[in-house]
């Protein structure tokens, strides 16, 4: 029984009541919409003659299918064009704000929300996308939903839900040089497993998260779902408020003061009851790299890939399947893993701080001629900010392609795809079989700086060796 946790308080404030079925009716304070998981939901509304219940709490953008080479309409891909037209029509018909490319605000939905100040502490946030957990960085309950649930939120502003348990994950101490928020979450998933979070919301706390930037917190919360937790959050604090100050949708003047006063009531109490608590020591975390087909199959950059000896049957089977797909050998050194594609972007690591970290590594250097490198900013504002700082030039001079904003090769619904069994170093969040567009494609997940380092060498490098 989680009591007096942020989860608890926000859940209670949004609980409309018990339905006859015994499920809770939960109000959704912010509904984010994108092109892929919404068309069927809007059609369902039309069929039933329904309208959108809270249109001013509903915002759309496009990210999954947009090409990143040129935004020229119509898109070359007819299906992508159709999806785009559907979202244009749906947002217009139902009176929803659409942050499309001409608005200058388009980008990956989980980057757009925070960047425009739509994402604020204490909200419930739903989106037809599993990485909605990202918004938990602001002390929200934010979670992915399916299309039928998108329909329900559109039509009623509510969802039927069951309450989750809360696990506090504490990381205390100081991170070593070269260790980034991406490494922290890969480490946590490695330790707790990809099913560890089933039935839980994750609350991240302790020294490491207290001192982490909002961008870093977003990276961590983003991948909660990779650990099986539908929700991950950090209690809001001064870092959160400083990030929000002056954003487009942030309150101003007296309203700002009232907002901060309310936000300060939200964090979990010091005597809050958790269903589970786990603690890690920051000094034990190294730069991480995945070698397999789930985000938990990872090692520290200076380690060797795990051996099969001594594993239980279940794990052995999983590892064998992973090794077979990845065409890698147990015991191989992580730094020997070859890399043919380098992808920097996604809602995990497509923010300005990520691009800066990667640019710093490649500045004045050239990527290996055998590597195809692409940098895809998470949103138009990220792209413009990076260009203002000259990061685009640094990447291009190093041999990277500098692209328009979108999801791109994180899931390869646009033309950016792996070919054959290409192996990519990727700053995204999923190394699932086929995820990057080729059924035989292979993905190594790591931090943006590690991707940059791998691109330079043509194989994985331990970032600490070149710092």
């Amino acid at each position, binding site marked *: 029984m989680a009591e007096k946790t942020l989860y608890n308080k926000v859940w209670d404030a949004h609980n409309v009541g018990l339905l006859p079925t*015994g499920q809770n009716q939960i109000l959704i304070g912010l509904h984010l919409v994108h092109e892929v998981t919404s*068309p069927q939901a809007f059609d369902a509304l039309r069929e039933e003659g329904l309208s959108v219940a809270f249109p001013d709490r509903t915002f759309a953008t496009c990210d999954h299918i947009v090409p990143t080479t040129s935004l020229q309409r119509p898109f070359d891909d007819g299906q992508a064009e159709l999806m785009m037209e559907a979202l244009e029509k749906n947002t217009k018909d139902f009176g929803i704000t659409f942050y499309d490319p001409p608005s200058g605000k388009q980008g990956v939905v989980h980057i757009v929300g925070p960047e425009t100040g739509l994402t604020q502490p204490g909200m419930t946030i739903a989106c037809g996308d599993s990485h909605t957990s990202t918004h938990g960085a602001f002390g929200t309950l934010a979670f992915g939903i399916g299309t039928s649930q998108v329909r329900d939120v559109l039509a*009623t502003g509510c969802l039927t839900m069951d309450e989750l348990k809360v696990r506090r994950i504490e990381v205390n101490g100081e991170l070593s040089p070269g260790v980034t928020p991406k490494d922290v979450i890969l480490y946590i998933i490695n330790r707790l497993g990809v099913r560890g979070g089933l039935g839980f919301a994750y609350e991240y706390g302790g020294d490491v998260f207290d001192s982490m930037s909002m961008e870093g917190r977003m990276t961590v919360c983003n991948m909660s779902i990779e650990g099986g937790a539908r929700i991950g959050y950090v209690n809001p604090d001064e870092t959160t408020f400083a990030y929000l100050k002056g954003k487009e949708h942030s309150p101003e003047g007296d309203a700002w003061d009232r907002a901060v006063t*309310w936000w300060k009531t939200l964090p979990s109490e010091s005597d809050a009851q958790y269903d589970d608590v786990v603690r890690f020591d920051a000094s034990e975390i190294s730069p991480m790299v995945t070698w397999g087909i*789930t985000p938990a199959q990872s090692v520290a950059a200076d380690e060797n890939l795990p051996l099969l000896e001594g594993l239980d049957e279940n794990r052995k*089977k999983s590892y064998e399947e992973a090794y077979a797909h990845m065409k890698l050998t147990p015991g191989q050194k992580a730094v020997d893993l070859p890399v043919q594609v380098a992808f920097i972007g996604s809602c995990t690591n497509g923010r300005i701080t990520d691009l800066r970290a990667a640019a710093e590594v490649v500045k004045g250097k050239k990527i290996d001629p055998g590597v195809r490198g692409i940098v895809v900013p998470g949103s138009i504002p990220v792209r413009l900010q990076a260009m203002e700082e000259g990061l685009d030039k640094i990447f291009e001079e190093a041999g990277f392609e500098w692209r328009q904003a979108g999801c791109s090769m994180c899931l390869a619904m646009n033309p950016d795809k792996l070919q054959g069994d290409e192996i990519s170093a990727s700053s995204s969040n999923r190394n699932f079989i*086929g995820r990057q*567009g080729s059924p035989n494609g292979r993905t190594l997940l790591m931090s943006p700086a590690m991707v940059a380092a791998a691109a330079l060498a043509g194989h994985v490098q331990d970032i600490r060796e070149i710092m």
Partner: protein
Amino acid sequence: MKDKKIRHLKGRGVSVPGNDIDTDRIIPARFLKEITFSRMGEYPFFDERFDSSGKEKDHPFNTNKGASFLIANDNFGCGSSREHAPQSLLRWGIQVILAESLAEIFAGNCAMIGLAAVTLSSDDIREIQAAVEADSSLELSLDLMTKTVLCQGKEYEVTIPEPRRQALTEGTWDSTALLLERLELSRSTAAALPYMSHFSS
């Protein structure tokens, strides 16, 4: 209106062994570019069912067509929230998923579309998997009223969150109408939240 109550289901089984089978594997992202679900039934496990020339590979969904009980292991349906995954299974013919455990969003999506997804102990799943793999003509049945599965004369206990079970057995899993009836209540909950009025007072 069609009766939406889901209480007793019967059919043949198809075993898809393996842990952590993610929704990208159930339906690759390129099939998400359609703006309706109507063709999703053609796509489940596409890249595992067909080679690059479109020839059928050895996959339980090829060898066991017509089955309606999918038997899976741990963390089935993890990853992306795409409802296209359960939609593709449902439209292919799956009505029941028996798993050791189900990913959260996936289980919720199943519940929303009237796909009965329940969990059983590892040992029970393995027994049923072995039985189905040995004899694909075997008939299985699920009784959501007693929360049991019957396979080869043996009864197995299944687990499903009670509200979710009731929504299926009472036919209220299509929740829009239910929530819509209470729109005024929702509006008053909204009014009590300071951010809904942009902290205006």
